[in-house]
């Protein structure tokens, strides 16, 4: 069953066309990686799906309802969005930041119940951020902060998770940990995950499909095997390389003119 349907969406910033005639159906409980060169419209697409930008034309439906028909509160219970890190103007602690994810569920005077706090603690534990729960966000490294925002998205308990380059500040171990965590959430809790990543090899190991956006507004959707074709990568990224497989996993090694094995890609 489709949980997200994007129908013929167009979007421009002033005169620059960012998305043109984009059609996309995301099945409930699937894991989709969004990739493409800078300026291809990856973040714009996620902003539109999060209800933060309105397309110039076309429509977006979440669970078969137009996104515009959701109230802000209802949408916050459907979609959590992790973006590249942002430090607030005032010094909230890690715990306070993650607890804000419960805002769409709070009743009465707006205080977290013991159940809310249990969910917050669970999210902190899952992202290995519980150890610095009492510290201020500005006291953390970029990678630690990024994990806090992933924890907040988990605590928001939404069926859909959008992540805009969540691994950008993370070391290899924490990248893999977060991917494992996301995969667990997909398989055990049935969450639908859309993730922008520049590291298509790691993303390909976890996602079901890849949506490849190109700067000339052509869109390619498929499995890693379908997407990791040297001619397609060359067309979209302008980079030659070597596509191969290791067991069940597909990979693509980009090779520039002066790379040691440049001759492999021709």
């Amino acid at each position, binding site marked *: 069953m489709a949980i997200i349907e994007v129908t013929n969406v167009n979007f421009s910033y002033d005169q620059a066309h960012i998305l043109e005639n984009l059609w996309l159906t995301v099945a409930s409980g699937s894991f989709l990686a969004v990739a493409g060169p800078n300026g291809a419209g990856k973040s714009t697409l996620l*902003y539109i799906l*999060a*209800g*933060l930008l309105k397309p110039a034309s076309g429509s977006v439906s979440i669970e078969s309802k137009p996104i515009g028909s959701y109230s*802000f*509160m209802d*949408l*916050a*219970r459907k*979609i*959590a*969005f992790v*973006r590249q890190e*942002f*430090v*607030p*103007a*005032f*010094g*909230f*602690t890690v*715990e*306070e*930041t993650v*607890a*804000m*994810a419960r*805002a*769409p569920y*709070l009743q009465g*005077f*707006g*205080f*977290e119940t013991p159940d809310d*706090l249990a969910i917050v603690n669970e999210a902190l534990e899952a992202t290995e951020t519980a150890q610095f729960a009492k510290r*201020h966000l*500005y006291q953390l490294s970029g990678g630690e902060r990024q994990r806090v925002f992933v924890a907040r998205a988990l605590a*928001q308990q939404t069926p859909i998770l959008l992540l805009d380059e969540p691994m950008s500040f993370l070391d290899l171990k924490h990248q893999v940990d977060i991917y494992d965590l996301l995969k667990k959430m997909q398989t055990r809790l049935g969450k639908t995950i859309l993730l922008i990543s520049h590291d298509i090899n790691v993303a390909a190991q976890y996602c079901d499909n890849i949506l490849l956006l190109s700067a000339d507004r052509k869109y390619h959707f498929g499995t890693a095997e379908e997407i990791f074709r040297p001619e397609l990568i060359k067309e979209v990224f302008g980079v030659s390389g070597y596509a191969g497989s290791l067991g069940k996993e597909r990979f693509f090694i980009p090779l520039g003119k002066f790379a040691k094995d440049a001759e492999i890609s021709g």
Partner: protein
Amino acid sequence: MLTQTTLITRIMIAVAILLVVCGFCLMTGTEKISPGNILKGPGSVPGSNIEYEIFIGVRLPRVLLAALVGAALAGSGVILQAILRNPLADPFILGISSGAGLGAVIAIIAGFTFTFLGGSPITVCAFAGALTTVWIVWAIGRFTTKSELTSLLLAGVVVNAFFSALIMFLTSIAKSEQMQATVFWLMGNISETSLPVIIVNFVIVLAGLAVLWSICLELNLLSFGESQAQNLGVDPTRIKLIAFTASAIITAVAVSLSGLVGFVGLIVPHAIRLVLGPDHRQLLPISAIIGAAFLVLADTIARTIVAPAQLPVGVITAMTGGPFFLILLARYTRKISWFSK
């Protein structure tokens, strides 16, 4: 993490501090008065109990007025710092001070004599000037660019500069006694006002603070930016409109009654944030209560330190609040967040 019990306890402590300060300040002044004589009542003949007359006619309105102005300015400072995500914001940042000032100067120079709902012409004109200015700044901010916060701040700066120039122009062509009245008003002056006027304005300020308190959870989320707040269920436009409107009204009430009392709206929120943290559900009520206590105390010093003359209260707020804030800053410097990174 802030819990409901912690918040209630802290509010009760803050209220206790306010009551002690008010009690002390009500009994302090050039004329000594005793609680026993006040409790005796006005007496059968008017003027037979002077201490009661002073208490009811002079001290009580003045203490209530100072508390009202302090609560309004500190509360408004919290809100504007949150909405503009700018630690340097104060209640006057969007030009409300110059608008009120222009209204007051026009009332002084034109020699208006009318009253409206018990308010003097200066009060009424300052209130109208303050609200008109906020409306102009808001309209410019919404109209000009996509980056609303920056254009609001710039619109505030421009309108402030323009109205300040008009105030200087009008002051320079005013008669000397009009000029003195204008300068004294601009320095911030809590003078005796009738009890009914204060009570009406107290209700307005309390209602405004209650409305603002109801959006404090949303203000916490807005600290992370409008789009993040929206992802957590906040309607940023609605919250900003409520925040600006309510804080503009309570600031306009404060400014129209007391002139430009600086420092309270900037420093009290910072001091409370340093000590108790940035959660607005706590920051707003505690800042308003402590802001009230601080201004009551500052005004008592202003009216007694060079008695029988009186200092503008703005002088006292800056002279006492500055060093006190520096002590807090040094003590809690490791907890400061907004100067780091």
